[in-house]
C-alpha cells in the first residue's frame, strides 16, 4: 500500500502526483462498494476534494492509505444513504461493464454476472471484499479502516465469498464449468 510524505499538503504538484497514484484504487473501491458505475467518477472527485480540504488534519504518524480509504468509505456510505433516501434499491442498479471496450463477449458477460452478484451483497460485506480482494489489505489494516475487529472481518469475508459462490452458481452456470 505504501505511505506518502506530507509534501502534498502544501505542494500542488505533489498533490497531483498523489491523485495520479491513488485515483484507480479509489475508483475500484467505490465501484465495488457503491455498485453504481455512473457515479464513480463524481464520487472519486469528491473523495480527493475531501482529502484536499482535510489535508491539515492528516497526521504523518498514521498510514496514509488507512486515512485515504476511511475518507473513501465515508464518501461511499454517504452516497448509499442518499440513494436509500431517494428510494432507489440496490438490486436494480445495473453496472455498465457490458459497455467496456476491449472485452470479449464472454468476458463481458462474466463481468456483468460478477458485478451483479457483488451488487447484491450487503454493503458491509462489499466493503471488506473490496479492501481484501481489490486493495490486497490484510485484516488488521482493514480493521483500522473500518473500525471493526479483524475476527469479525474474517467472518464477513468468508460469508461474502460463500454468497458470491452461490450467486454466481445461480446467475452464471458457465463460471462453474470454466
Amino acid at each position, binding site marked *: 500500500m505504501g505511505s506518502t510524505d506530507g509534501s502534498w499538503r502544501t505542494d500542488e504538484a505533489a498533490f497531483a502526483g498523489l491523485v495520479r497514484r491513488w*485515483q484507480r484504487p479509489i475508483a475500484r473501491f467505490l465501484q465495488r462498494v457503491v455498485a453504481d458505475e455512473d457515479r464513480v467518477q463524481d464520487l472519486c*472527485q469528491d473523495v480527493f476534494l475531501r482529502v*484536499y*480540504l482535510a489535508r491539515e488534519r492528516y497526521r504523518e504518524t498514521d498510514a496514509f492509505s488507512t486515512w485515504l480509504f476511511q475518507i473513501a468509505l465515508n464518501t461511499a456510505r454517504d452516497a448509499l444513504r442518499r440513494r436509500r433516501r431517494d428510494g432507489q434499491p440496490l438490486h436494480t442498479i445495473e453496472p455498465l461493464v457490458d459497455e467496456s471496450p476491449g472485452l470479449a463477449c464472454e468476458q463481458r458477460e462474466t463481468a456483468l454476472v460478477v458485478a451483479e452478484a457483488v451488487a447484491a451483497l450487503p454493503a458491509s460485506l462489499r466493503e471488506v471484499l473490496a479492501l*481484501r480482494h481489490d486493495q490486497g489489505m490484510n*485484516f488488521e489494516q482493514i480493521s483500522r479502516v473500518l473500525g471493526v475487529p479483524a475476527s469479525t472481518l474474517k467472518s464477513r469475508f468468508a460469508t461474502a465469498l460463500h454468497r*458470491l459462490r452461490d450467486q*454466481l452458481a445461480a446467475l452464471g452456470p458457465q463460471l462453474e464449468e470454466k
Partner: protein
Amino acid sequence: MNCPTVDELLPLHAYGDLSADEAAEVDGHLAECPGCRAEFAALTAVRQALDATPPPEVVVDPIVISHAAIERSAVRGRWRWAVACGGLALGLMGLALLKLEVRVDGQQCVVRWGTPPEIVPPARLVESAPDTMVALEERVRVLQELTHALAADVAARDRVRGVSQVQTNARLDALVRTIARRFQEAERDVDALYTAQFRPVNEGVKP
C-alpha cells in the same frame, strides 16, 4: 478437521490468510475430501471471476479539485459569517427580550434580567418628628392643653353625675317615706276592720 470447520476456513485459505499450521491441516483435509475440494475450486473460481470486472476509467483533475476546494471554502466562509451574524442577532434579540442589565458598581458586578422590582421606601415609624426645640415646646403645650381639657371634661361629668346621684337619693328617701306612711295607714285600716268585726264577742282580746 471436519468438513464444516474446513468450509469456514476455505475462503481465507483461497486468499492465503491462514497460518502455516492451519493451511497444512486444511490441505490435508482437501487431499482426502472431494466435496471440500470442489468447494475450494469454486471459491478459487470466484476469486478469479472477481477480477473479470474491469476497474473503472476515471480521471481526477487536481486543478478542478483545488478550484472546488477554494469555492467550497468561500461558501463555508460565507455560511460561517451568515451563521455568526444570525447568531449574534438572535443573541441580541434574546438579551433585549430578557432585559439583561450588566453593571459594575464599585466592588460588585450586577447581572440582572427581567423588569426590576419596584423599590418601596421603608415606612417611617414617626411620621413627623420634632425637628427643633420650638416645635417640641409647642407640642408639649398642645399636649398640656389637651390634658387640661380632658380633666375639665372629666370634672364636669363628675359634677353632673353627683347632682344626678343626689336627686336619685332624694327620690329614694321620698319613696321610703311614702311606703312607711302607707304601711301605717294599712295597719290602722286592719285594726279598724278587726275591731268592727270581733268586739261584740271577745271585746278587748285579739285572736
